[in-house]
Every structure is written in C-alpha cells, then in structure tokens.
C-alpha cells in the first residue's frame, strides 16, 4: 500500500515538475508547482511526518503561490517576456542535468538503508542485533517511536531551539527587507520609468 502511494505521488510530482519547466505561461507554471507541492505533501504523509505535510501545503501551496500569483497580476505585461534564455544551449544543459540525475541515482542505488528500518511490527530486522545496541532494543520488543507533532515540537524547542529562534529572526528581517525594497520612492511614483 505504502509503495503504491509512493509511486503514485512520485508520478504526480514528476509530471507536475515537467509541466513547471515546460509551460510557457507563468500562471500555469505556478499552478503546476502547487500540484508538485501537493504530491510532495502526500509523500511526507507516507514518510510518517504529517506535520511537514501540513506546513508545506500551508507555506508553499498557500502563501508562496498566492504571492506569486499576486505579483504576476500586479506586473501585467504588454508583451510576455521571452521564454527561452537565448544564450543557453538547451541540449547541453539537458545532458548535464541528465548526467546529474544518473550520478545521483547511482549513488542512491548503492545506498543501503540503515538496519534500524523495520516494519511497524519489528519482524523483518535485517541488521545484526548483537553489534548495534539500538537495534537490540528494537529486538527486545520496543516499538518504533512514532513521530508525532508533539515529539517534533519538543525536539524543535529543546534541542534545536537556537536554530528555530534564528529562523524566526531571519523571517522578520526578510519581511522588513521586502517592505523596504518594494516601497516606491517618490521619484518612481512620479516618473514611473526613471530611477530616483
């Protein structure tokens, strides 16, 4: 069941990402990005992190896409900007990106999941329980710790407290910076095109 869901969401995500890269109209691209984000959120649920799914949908598919659409409508163009970057060789870049995917896939193929991945019943442990004390704990019948919102929050505000505070400060600074950047100066309001 889980692998079926994984394949399904992965297919949706890849199709949506291809749409994002190929659609000419930015609004279509933004909507297919939202689709890819929804598929990713489904994968988060499969990966046992429901809070991340909710946060991703809220932040990406909600806030970011809305702001993107808002900016798109704010900057209505008489002529749409050229689609392709003319200096870029699309074939060359495609080959480079394909090589990157191949390299990453080769790396993934040789990666072995750690022995602590067990099914929820703890029945199919493949590692050596005698060498890994944590694994032996699992063997002794402890169930895998369920990742809940409460445990995530506890870890966020104890072990990663400073990182969270820094992230909050960064968000505040970015908000102020965005306000300052986007504010029109008086000269721009008057003349439109010229810089002040």
């Amino acid at each position, binding site marked *: 069941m889980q692998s079926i869901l994984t394949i399904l969401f992965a297919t949706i*995500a890849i199709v949506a990402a291809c749409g994002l890269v190929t659609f000419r109209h930015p609004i279509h691209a933004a909507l297919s*990005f939202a689709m890819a984000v929804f598929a990713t959120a489904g994968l988060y649920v499969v990966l046992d*992190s429901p809070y991340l799914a909710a946060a991703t949908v809220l932040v990406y598919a909600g806030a970011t896409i809305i702001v993107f659409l808002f*900016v798109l409508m704010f900057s209505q163009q008489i002529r749409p900007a050229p689609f392709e970057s003319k200096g870029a060789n699309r074939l060359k870049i495609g080959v480079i990106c394909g090589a990157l995917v191949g390299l990453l896939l080769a790396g993934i193929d040789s*990666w072995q999941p750690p022995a602590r991945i067990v099914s929820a019943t703890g029945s199919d442990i493949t590692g050596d329980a005698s060498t890994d004390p944590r694994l032996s704990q699992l063997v002794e019948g402890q169930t895998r710790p369920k990742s809940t919102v409460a445990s*995530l929050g506890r*870890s966020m505000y104890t072990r990663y407290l400073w990182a969270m505070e820094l*992230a909050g400060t960064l968000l505040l600074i970015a908000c102020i910076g*965005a306000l300052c950047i*986007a504010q029109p100066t008086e000269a721009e309001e008057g003349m439109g095109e010229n810089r002040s």
Partner: protein
Amino acid sequence: MNQPVLALSAVLFALGLFGLTTRRNVILLFLSMELMLVSVSLNFAAFAFAHQDLGGQVFVLMILTVAACEAALALALVVQLYRMRHSLDVQLWQSLGDPESIRPAPIEDSTWPREPSKENDGPSLAPAGRDPAGYLASESIDSPAAAHRG
C-alpha cells in the same frame, strides 16, 4: 521504500536546475528554485524517516522558513524590476556586469546574444570610472548611467 523517494527528489532537483538555467522569465526562475528547495527537503524527510531521527524534520522546517524569506525578498525584487524595466526578462537586469559585455537588447529582440565582434571576444576588465566610451549613454535608453547623465 526510501529509495523511490530519493530518486524522485534527484529528478525534481535536476528538473529545477534545468528550468533555472534555461528560462528567462524571473517568475519561472524563482519557481524552479523553489522546486529545487522542495526536492532537497523531500530528501531530508526521507532520511529522517530512515534514521528515525527528528532532526531531519526540523531541518525541513528551517528550509521552509528560508524559502519563505527568499520568496518574499525575490518577489519584492521582481516588483522593482518590473517598475524599472516594464518587463520580467532577467536579461534586462545586467547593470552590474562588465560594460563591454552589456549590450542591452530591446525586449522584442529575438537574436540575443548578438554575435561577438572580432576585436572583443576575449575576457576583459571592466574599465574604471564612468563609462569611458560613452557606450551605455549612447546605446541604452534606461541604463543607470544614462539616467544619471540626463
């Protein structure tokens, strides 16, 4: 069941990279960048699941925060770009480049970049001072140098 997710995030990352390098519309560039961020955070979640460690999930939340900051700043910049040039074309936003390599093309010019001329196809240093050849002032309508002189 982790490896399909890792493979998916590799593919998404490559697609985002492709979009980032070949597109010319700023909005599409930022969407591709967000796609790359999504793929990386998917990777973090997959490893958090594999190792049963919540650090990966916390890191995804960090990435979300940074992505939100980036989107706010980037869209403010897009608004400014649109105000100055009335287009969303990134290649009109080159005022900080080497003046000899800047050939501000009109928006409808489809032959960008122009063929490099023979005398100036190697790398060169940016001339110091204000625009010695009067190049920017003569050729571009809305470059900063022209605006300052006028």
